[in-house]
């Protein structure tokens, strides 16, 4: 029987092949959507592993998370250096790393921070940042760049770069006077770190200060960071815009001695009297983010599911159109001893076979796309896709498709069953 079924299919290999292909494409689409959903969440979640709290100016938690960690959207408002010191001084705080954001270099975000960032930042559970070459910045005019920055712009350590002011690729004022020297390139992490140019807070300030004075006259490191606010900038009062930004930071990454203190510290920050602040728990905020994106995911998954339905209906159509022609064939098989149930199994089994073949090919296509497309996804969307075995959920989806395929096969199966019972000895077509 099986041999017969395969020979029959081979005889109709063109339509059968098309059917398998359409099912395969729809399955690949469905599983691809599910895979990207899963991978993007995993990728987001693994971007901030070691950080217990993120503090920024009062704003929406999602906004703060996206801008401070993922460099998506406009940075939140500045907060004062005093606030940083207050939070860093809390007994529950293990470490606190300030970040200044808002500038870009040739499309890549520039972050002002301290060397502590490289020590405490964690991604993908427990992995820390590694320098591929060179050393962390030590003076204001040094920079550490992410791997993708290095690759795209073809920068190495030792080369100098000019940082501009203001988000966006085109800036009104190119800070030609303030060249930075690259001291190190970070090893690829698959996180937004790869796309970031890191400079010291002082360097970040100097980008603005340099507008008037030039780098030679300005070395905030000499004064030490504690004196950072105010002191130096008093010299050039004419640039109020820079004065404000320079005295401030955008966000603080906080590590706690004990996770249990998280809510307590969060309350302290949220009720901080000197200025309005927000503290977020990255994990909880991610969940909030997912609840926002869920609508879009559902829509995508629904569309993909409909595409699968279309593929299966296509199979049903071809099976049913073939059916009339196959009544004679079935009458012959009945004459040599096949029963109506055998005939039904032959036709329904074909649907099962086509669906299985389609699903397998679909999975193969998906992995093919992933293998070929992973670099592009990482380059364009910063999405690091892991080529892993199908997850339980994906296998579930696959199982569902197979079950539906079998169900669809019952329709022509039942029809041919009725035909063979009704036809008797001679098919009257």
């Amino acid at each position, binding site marked *: 029987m099986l041999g*017969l079924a395969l*020979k*029959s299919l*081979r*005889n109709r290999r063109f339509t059968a092949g098309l059917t398998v292909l359409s099912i395969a494409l729809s399955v690949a689409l469905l599983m691809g959507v599910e895979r990207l959903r899963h991978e993007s969440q995993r990728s987001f979640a693994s971007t901030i592993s070691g950080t217990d709290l993120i503090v920024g100016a009062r704003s929406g938690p999602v906004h703060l998370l996206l801008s401070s960690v993922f460099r998506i959207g406009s940075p939140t408002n500045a907060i004062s250096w005093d606030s940083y010191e207050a939070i860093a001084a809390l007994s529950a705080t293990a470490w606190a790393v300030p970040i200044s954001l808002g500038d870009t270099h040739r499309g890549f975000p520039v972050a002002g921070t301290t060397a502590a960032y490289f020590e405490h930042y964690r991604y993908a559970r427990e992995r820390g940042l590694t320098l591929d070459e060179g050393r962390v910045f030590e003076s204001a005019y040094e920079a550490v760049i992410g791997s993708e920055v290095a690759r795209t712009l073809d920068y190495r350590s030792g080369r100098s770069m000019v940082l501009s002011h203001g988000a966006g690729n085109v800036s009104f004022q190119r800070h030609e006077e303030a060249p930075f020297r690259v001291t190190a390139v970070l090893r690829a992490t698959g996180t937004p770190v790869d796309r970031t140019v890191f400079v010291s807070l002082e360097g970040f300030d100097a980008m603005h200060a340099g507008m008037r004075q030039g780098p030679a006259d300005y070395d905030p490191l000499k004064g030490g960071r504690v004196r950072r606010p105010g002191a130096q900038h008093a010299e050039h009062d004419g640039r109020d815009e820079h004065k404000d930004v320079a005295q401030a930071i955008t966000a603080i990454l906080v590590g706690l001695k004990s996770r249990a203190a998280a809510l307590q510290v969060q309350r302290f920050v949220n009720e901080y009297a000197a200025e309005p602040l927000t503290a977020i728990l990255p994990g909880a905020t991610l969940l909030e983010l997912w609840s926002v994106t869920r609508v879009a995911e559902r829509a995508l998954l629904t569309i993909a599911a409909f595409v699968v339905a279309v593929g299966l209906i296509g199979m049903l159509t071809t099976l049913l159109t073939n059916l009339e022609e196959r009544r*004679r*064939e079935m*009458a*012959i*098989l*009945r*004459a*040599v*001893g*096949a*029963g*109506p*149930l*055998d005939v039904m199994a032959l036709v329904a089994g074909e649907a099962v076979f086509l669906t299985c073949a389609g699903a397998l090919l679909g999975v193969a296509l998906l992995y093919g796309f992933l293998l070929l497309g992973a670099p592009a996804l990482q380059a364009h969307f910063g999405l690091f896709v892991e080529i892993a075995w199908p997850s339980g959920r994906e296998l579930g989806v696959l199982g569902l498709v197979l079950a539906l395929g079998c169900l669809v096969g019952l329709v022509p199966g039942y029809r041919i069953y009725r035909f063979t019972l*009704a036809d*008797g*000895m*001679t*098919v009257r077509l």
Partner: protein
Amino acid sequence: MAGPMGGTLRERDMIVDVVDLQYAWRNGTGPVIDIPSLRIDAGERVLLWGPSGSGKSTLLGLLGGVVPPQQGRLRLLGQDLARMRGPQRDRFRADHIGVIFQLFNLVPYLSVVENVTLPCRFSSHRRANALRQSSSIEREAIRWLTALELSDREILDRPVVELSVGQQQRVAAARALIGAPAMVLADEPTSALDADLKEAFLGLLLNECAREGTTLLFVSHDRSFLPRFDRGVDFAALNRACPGPSAEPVPRRRIA
């Protein structure tokens, strides 16, 4: 199933034993078959003729176990088909009966030899019989094709849909005869052939059945073949549900 198939039994016994058999198609307009009695002995070659629509094909369907019987006695090879369940009748047919249709006898995607060996796939009984004759069922298929004058390699290798109708019917005869079934049911196998081919085909089929001792029930519109058979049956006279031969064919009222 092989029980009642002993050699002596075959010669002596009744192959077909029908008493008061009645049948009506479920969507039809009344009984199509109403046969008080029909007996065919082992090895007999019987011509059954009658008008179109009189129920000849329906009777063959009943005898072959394709159409489930409704009323009356229907025994083949001493076994009661009326008492069998569907799958048992299918096995019975696979083991003991060969069928030749009027047209479209061959499975288009199988080769000539594969078409002939088809019954051996469904019946281990016929497979064993075939292997008693030849070393493989394919050899046995070729032996039958040769007997039916189809030995040309060139013909064997061609897709079956490219064969002429006469060639196709001979392939069908080889398939009906392979593995020594007790009976061959032929439903107007010659009506698509022209006169010369008719004669040739009939001659081959009758010879092979005689040689093998196979019972043959041959249905035709055409009673001119009668002298070449052991016996003829006028279906119009046999079947009480059939209007007289002078009457118009049974009104074919179909449910729209």
